[in-house]
């Protein structure tokens, strides 16, 4: 059964139709990738799934419940991280996690925060201010925040966009581990094709607000007669 089901989602900003009648589902423990050129409508889609943007048309159902009518319940079972958000910079890493442990009403928060500091190798940084950290370290803090409530669905918008190859690879390895070992479902956008190939069970290509191609990395490569996902991307993006 799908834990996330979006039906005919549509969002217009003035004359721009950012998302156009999009259907999307994510199954338990499934990692789904959303690809497409800048402006394709990926972030708008994710934001509608998170309740940040109200769709003009369509519905979002998670865990069998309508998002808009069950906001608190649904949001407490999912989480989010993105390259364009940050955590309160003046707070210490541990404080930030304690704050969000409260906002997600995490049971036994002290143990959870300690475990995540450990998992993300943030122990030595726990008394450092977030704004003093490197982007790679900040991304790890964001992921720790995103894992506090042991989300059944993790929504990630270009999580590795600001990272150098080394930091990016560390995050990717961690995400793969979370997906494979903990069976955490994810919906992820990225412009890093090897990352998507490595992580995603299923991929949707978006262009101008619509899904124009779907399948596993191998299926997409085969159907577009391309060597890899990168080549698929170029074919899709250039029509």
């Amino acid at each position, binding site marked *: 059964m799908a834990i996330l089901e979006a039906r005919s989602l549509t969002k217009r900003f003035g004359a721009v139709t950012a998302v156009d009648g999009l259907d999307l589902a994510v199954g338990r423990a499934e990692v789904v990738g959303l690809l497409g050129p800048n402006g394709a409508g990926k972030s708008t889609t994710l934001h509608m799934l998170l309740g940040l943007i109200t769709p003009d048309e369509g519905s979002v159902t998670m865990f069998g419940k309508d998002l808009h009518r069950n906001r608190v319940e649904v949001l*407490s079972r999912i989480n*989010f991280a993105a390259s364009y958000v940050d955590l*309160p910079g003046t707070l210490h890493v541990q404080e930030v996690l304690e704050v969000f442990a409260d906002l997600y009403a995490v*049971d036994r928060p002290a143990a959870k925060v300690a475990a995540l500091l450990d998992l993300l190798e943030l122990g030595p940084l726990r008394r450092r201010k977030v704004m003093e950290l490197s982007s790679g370290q900040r991304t790890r803090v964001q992921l720790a925040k995103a894992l506090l409530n042991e989300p059944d669905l993790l929504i990630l918008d270009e999580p590795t966009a600001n990272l150098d190859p080394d930091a990016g690879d560390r995050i990717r390895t961690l995400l793969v581990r979370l997906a494979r070992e903990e069976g955490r479902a994810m919906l992820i956008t990225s412009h890093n094709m090897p990352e998507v190939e490595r992580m995603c069970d299923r991929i949707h290509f978006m262009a101008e607000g619509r899904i124009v191609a779907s399948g596993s990395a191998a299926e997409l490569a085969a159907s577009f007669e391309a060597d890899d996902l990168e080549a698929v991307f170029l074919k899709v993006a250039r029509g």
Partner: protein
Amino acid sequence: MTTTLPPLATLPPLGARARGRRVLGVVRRDFAALRRSPIRMFEIVFWPTVELVLWGFVTLFLQTQKVPFAVGFLLGAVLLWQVLQKASNEISIAFLEDIWSRNLLNVQVSPLSSVEYLIGLMVFSLGKVAFAVAVMSALCLALYGFGVTAMGLGLVPFMALLLVMGWSLGLVGIAAVLRFGENAQVIAWSLVFVAQPLTGIFYPVSVLPAPLQTVAHLIPGTYVFEGMRTVLNGGAVPWGDLALAALLDVVYLGISLAVFGWALRYARAHGKLSRFGE
């Protein structure tokens, strides 16, 4: 074979304990931000002190000019005005801080409801106002020998009424930012100053032209500042007026909550939440 379900990672989200924790999270965040920012600690006492010293000396000067004027009038006014201004601005600051630190989306995608969020902001602003009032009261006594207890029993309702009025103004300020974007910060800061000349802080409302007097009597603060002068002149606490002010407070708080809700829905409908800071 029995299968054991993994323990739930979070408290039941709609339960009272979870709600309490989420409110606590907002308070904890603001407290930690304050603790980590010495400038903001400094600010809590800086402006009240400056105003107090300034108006205290004005009073002393007026007295040397044989103007019959109770020391308490201006000092009490400055103190109560700070309650109003801080209640309003602290709420806006806490919200704007999320925008400045690009943390707004993290808060908005958490299960925190708007009501819980606002309660958290109010609780925290209450703490800061209480602290500032304590500092100012001590200064009043030390510098000018004016004890705020001269306002008697009225002091508690005076402050409570101004606090709630300040929260309403702060909410409208936040709503303006949600509706018009970050540039509307100016509105968030200045709204409370619109009330300043109208609410009879430093002079009785009777000096205002008649139409403005009517406006003044629609502002809860007016009854507080008039009441303060009555009490300092040796009169009784005007409970009837304060009850009217409380009624007005409730009405305005209701209206500003509605305005906030409307602005938040607007921001969600127009994709504004993710556009702050760009």
